[in-house]
């Protein structure tokens, strides 16, 4: 009887920041990261950044279609995805380019995708990655299903799912986190809270102060981290991945970051947000911060950085050339009928034949006409 405060257990919500935008480091919390892992993360972030810039350039030249830039969010998806083994599952949304490439997606694949080729959603053979998911939040449920399956098969695999702040409003987000907690499935939910869902700011997306606290609804641990601080992201992700692998169930990680660029190349953010706000976040660039840290720790030299930049530039150039060459061979319209089913049903075959005939006739006409 009486009135008493309820303190939900199972789910403490912390805020974590280790390396701040001024270069201050909380050495007590500094995660132990092997040097080669640091270099892998740096390369992935840098490649992600440069490739993103290149894609934007290509878009402006009309050499690819609509593209959603990732600039400024690299620490959030690299600092988390780095914790996955090759045998773990990676379930992206559409703004994790650096991590996708780190996981093994080729740059050609991305170029094909953004040029409207279905070949751009072929995942590498044997890979444990899902292709990008456009319907917001929908992929979260697939991650839970994968995690359920991994638990069933007792393989120790962990699943990591990515999504944005806007995704937290969808029913699928809720259902996915709820089910994951019920089944104590080994899955880590990484929300890249870049503060905007196209033109809708976080405050119009939800009335909760943090997204991390939504974990409480599921009796699941949640943590909010400075998403531009790769050390904090890493530390939080390590805790979550370890917990998942040890049978401790799911975790929600909110990475507070910022969408520096437009939503996609079709979007004009000047319509809805101020240049000052953007500028303020430019100062918190995760890449600059991380580079400084690595230089200070002597994990890399200025010289090596320059060489790395050059190497990446060439890799990107080579990928663009390969992709553009490849596209000249691809695009056979008859491919649209394939792989809808393992075995093509009769009517679909008819449709394929009709188009083949039409193309052949058009070809003949073009030839003779």
């Amino acid at each position, binding site marked *: 009887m009486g009135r008493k405060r309820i303190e939900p257990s199972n789910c403490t919500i912390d805020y974590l920041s280790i390396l701040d935008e001024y270069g201050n480091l909380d050495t007590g919390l500094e995660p132990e990261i092997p040097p080669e892992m640091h270099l892998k993360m740096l390369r992935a972030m840098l490649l992600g950044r440069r490739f993103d810039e290149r894609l934007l350039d290509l878009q402006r030249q009309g050499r690819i279609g609509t593209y959603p830039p990732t600039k400024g969010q690299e620490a959030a998806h690299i600092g988390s995805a780095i914790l996955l083994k090759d045998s773990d599952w990676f379930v992206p949304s559409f703004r994790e380019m650096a991590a996708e490439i780190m996981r093994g997606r080729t740059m050609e694949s991305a170029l094909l995708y953004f040029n409207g080729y279905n070949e751009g959603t072929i*995942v590498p053979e044997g890979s444990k990655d899902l292709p990008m998911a456009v319907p917001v939040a929908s992929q979260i449920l697939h991650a839970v299903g994968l*995690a359920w399956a991994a638990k069933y*098969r007792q393989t120790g695999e962990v699943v990591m799912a990515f999504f944005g702040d806007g995704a937290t409003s969808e029913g699928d987000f809720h259902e996915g986190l*709820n*089910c994951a907690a019920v089944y104590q499935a080994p899955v880590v939910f990484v929300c890249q809270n870049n503060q905007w869902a196209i033109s809708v700011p976080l405050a119009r997306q939800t009335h909760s102060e943090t997204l991390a606290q939504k974990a409480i609804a599921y009796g699941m641990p949640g943590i909010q981290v400075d998403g531009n601080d790769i050390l904090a992201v890493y530390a939080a992700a390590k805790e979550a991945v370890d917990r998942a692998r040890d049978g401790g169930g799911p975790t929600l990680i909110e990475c507070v970051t910022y969408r520096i660029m437009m939503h996609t190349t079709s979007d004009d953010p000047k319509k809805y947000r101020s240049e000052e706000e953007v500028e303020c976040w430019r100062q918190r660039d995760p890449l600059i911060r991380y580079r400084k840290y690595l230089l200070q720790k002597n994990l890399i030299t200025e010289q090596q950085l320059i060489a790395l930049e050059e190497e990446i530039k060439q890799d990107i150039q080579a990928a663009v050339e390969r992709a553009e060459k490849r596209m000249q061979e691809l695009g056979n319209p008859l491919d649209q009928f394939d792989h*809808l*089913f393992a075995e093509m049903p*009769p009517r679909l075959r008819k449709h394929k034949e009709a188009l083949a005939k039409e193309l052949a006739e058009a070809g003949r006409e073009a030839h003779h006409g």
Partner: protein
Amino acid sequence: MAKMTMVEALNMALRQEMKRDDSVILLGQDIGPDGGVFRVTDRLFAEFGENRVVDTPLAEASIVGMSVGMAVYGLKPVCEIQFSGFIYQAFHQIENHAARMRWRTRGRLHVPMVMRAPYGAGVRALEHHSESREAYWAHTPGLKVVIPSGPRNARALLVSAIRDPDPVIFYEAKALYRSLREDVPEEEETLPIGRANIARAGDAVTIIAYGAMVRPALEAADLLAEKEKMAAEVIDLLTLSPLDEELLVASVKKTGRAVVVHEAPQSFGPGAEIVARLMEGAFYYLEAPIERVTGFDTIVPYFSREKSYLPGAERIAAAARRTFIK
């Protein structure tokens, strides 16, 4: 062979497939200790345990969305949507993902999963529990739509659906669940998806039906035989998509007349496609316009009025007779 209801036959199919293959996982609402609200999963929880017969939270998008993940992983989820009237909560997961995963990844990933759901009227159920909207799925590229018409073919088709490498919508007519018994062999039996069946041979008129409508179609054939001495051919589709066009066209070329029957609302319903295929394949053989005997273009009325909504033998026979009047 044991005489079984459709519920029992489906239960047997699930049990046998689960025994055969530990990647077959059932999930849905109340399918565990309760055995499903229609008892299709009766006793399977006791036999296979909670990792094989998984009660889910009350969330249809989760059931389908998790199944997509499980199927990509390599399992074969068979999910139960408690009533097809609540499958819409999962529509986006079906259309955006289940139906597309193979196509999007050019065959690299695929989702062998079955979505079972009871559909149709005639059992005095509450509202939202009696609709017949299989056309939504038949119009969705990437899905197969299977609708059995009795215990034996239900069992064989469910086995085929589970083994199918692609997502299958498997609609079960509630009206057939317990209303008839058939011999169903203990031994394995499958039926090919995409093949219709001549339920009764004839040459005067072709009556095309599926699911719970096969019975009134056959009764209509009886009426026509009795009163008009007319041999109607009754085709039981079994699979709505892909449609067994070849069999339909061959029959109508022979009879020159056709009646298409379904419970679903008429407009933009499954019957329209059948008419269009016959127009394409048998136009010059048609003696009269094809008749559609279908649900009306309204919502299935609450159960006190539902009988009047459902096509019955008399209504079907009358339509068949109309194909003989110029």
